[in-house]
C-alpha cells in the first residue's frame, strides 16, 4: 500500500491520461537506450536511436493533446505537434547520413560490427 502512495500506479488502471502516454514513451525510450548499448550491429544501434526519438515524440504529442489533458490544464497546443513533426524529419535526415556512414564502414572494413571500429583507438 505504501508503494502505491509513493508510486501511484493505480492511476494507470483508470481512464487514459497523459501519464499512460508517458509510460509508453518511457518503455520506448528505455528499449532504445538498451538497443544502442547492447547491439553490436551498426544497424541495430541505428534502430535504437529511432526508438529513443520515437519515445520522445510520444511524450510531445501527449502533452500537446487537449483530448488527454484534464479540463483547465494547459497543454502545449500546436507547439508539441510541430516539435514532433520536426523530430520525425530530423530523424529521417539522421538515418540517411548514418546509413551512408555505415555503408562506407562496411565497404572499408567488410563488417558492420561496431566493436571492430577501433581504428582511432590509441
Amino acid at each position: 500500500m505504501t508503494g502505491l502512495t509513493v508510486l501511484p500506479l493505480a492511476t494507470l488502471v483508470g481512464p487514459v491520461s497523459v501519464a499512460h502516454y508517458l509510460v509508453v514513451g518511457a518503455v520506448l525510450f528505455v528499449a532504445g537506450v538498451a538497443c544502442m548499448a547492447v547491439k553490436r550491429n551498426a544497424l541495430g544501434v541505428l534502430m535504437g536511436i529511432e526508438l529513443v526519438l520515437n519515445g520522445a515524440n510520444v511524450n510531445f504529442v501527449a502533452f500537446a493533446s487537449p483530448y488527454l489533458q484534464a479540463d483547465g490544464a494547459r497543454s502545449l497546443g500546436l507547439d508539441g505537434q510541430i516539435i514532433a513533426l520536426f523530430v520525425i524529419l530530423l530523424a529521417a535526415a539522421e538515418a540517411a547520413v548514418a546509413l551512408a556512414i555505415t555503408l562506407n564502414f562496411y565497404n572499408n572494413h567488410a563488417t558492420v560490427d561496431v566493436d571492430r571500429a577501433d581504428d582511432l583507438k590509441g
Partner: protein
Amino acid sequence: MIPTLAAIDWHAVFFLLFAAVACGGAIAVVAADNVVRMALYLVLSLGATAGLFFLAGAEFVGAMQLMIYVGGTLVLLVFGVMLTAQAPFVSIKTTAGDRALATIVGLGLFGLLVTAGLSVEAWRQPGSHRLTEPAATPIGMALVGVRVDAPPANAPAAAVRSGYLLPFEIVSVHLLVVLVGAAYLARAKRRKTPRAIEVAASAEPPTAVAEHAAIGRSAGRAASVLTGGSV
C-alpha cells in the same frame, strides 16, 4: 454483467492495443538477435505509435509518422540491412554479461522515468476527451507563419504567438544539406582493381585499334621530323 458495446470505452481499448504493440515491438527489437527480425519489430512498434498519435488527436503527426518513418526511414534501414546482410552479420550475438548489465541499467532508468511521469498530479487526471478541430490546417498555416489555431484557454489576452516559418526554413535547408551530404558519402568509388571487361580489352587490342595506333605513331614521327624536334 456483460457490458454492452456502447458501454465500452473504445478509446481505452484501442489505446491498450496500440500501447501493447508499441511496447512489445520495442522490447522485441532489443531481444532479437537477427537484424532482419529487428527491422520487422521496429515497423510494428513505429506503426503502433502512429496509432497512439491518432488516438491523442494528432492525426497529422500520425500520418507523417506513417509516411516518413514507416514508409521512408524504415525502407532506408531495410535497404541497409539487405546491403550488409552477409551470413556472419545477420545475427551478431551479444554476450550474456552485457545483456544482464543492460537489463539492470534499463530497469533502473525505466523506474526513474515512470516515477517522474507519475509524480505530477495534473498528468494523472483523466483526460477531458474534448474534441478539437483537425490539426492539418492550423499546422500548415503555422508553418508559413500564420496562427489560426485557438489560443490556450488561460493564455494572456494580448499574447503574441509566433508561427514556425524560421524553423521550417532551417529544417528545409538542413534536409537539402543532408541530401547532398548523404549522396556524397554513399557515392560509388572508383575501383582499385580493373573490371573484367577492362582486363580483356587491355590484353589483346582489336586489329582496327592496333592499326589506328600504328598510324598515330608514324604521324607523330613525321611531325617530329617537320618541326625538327625529337619526341
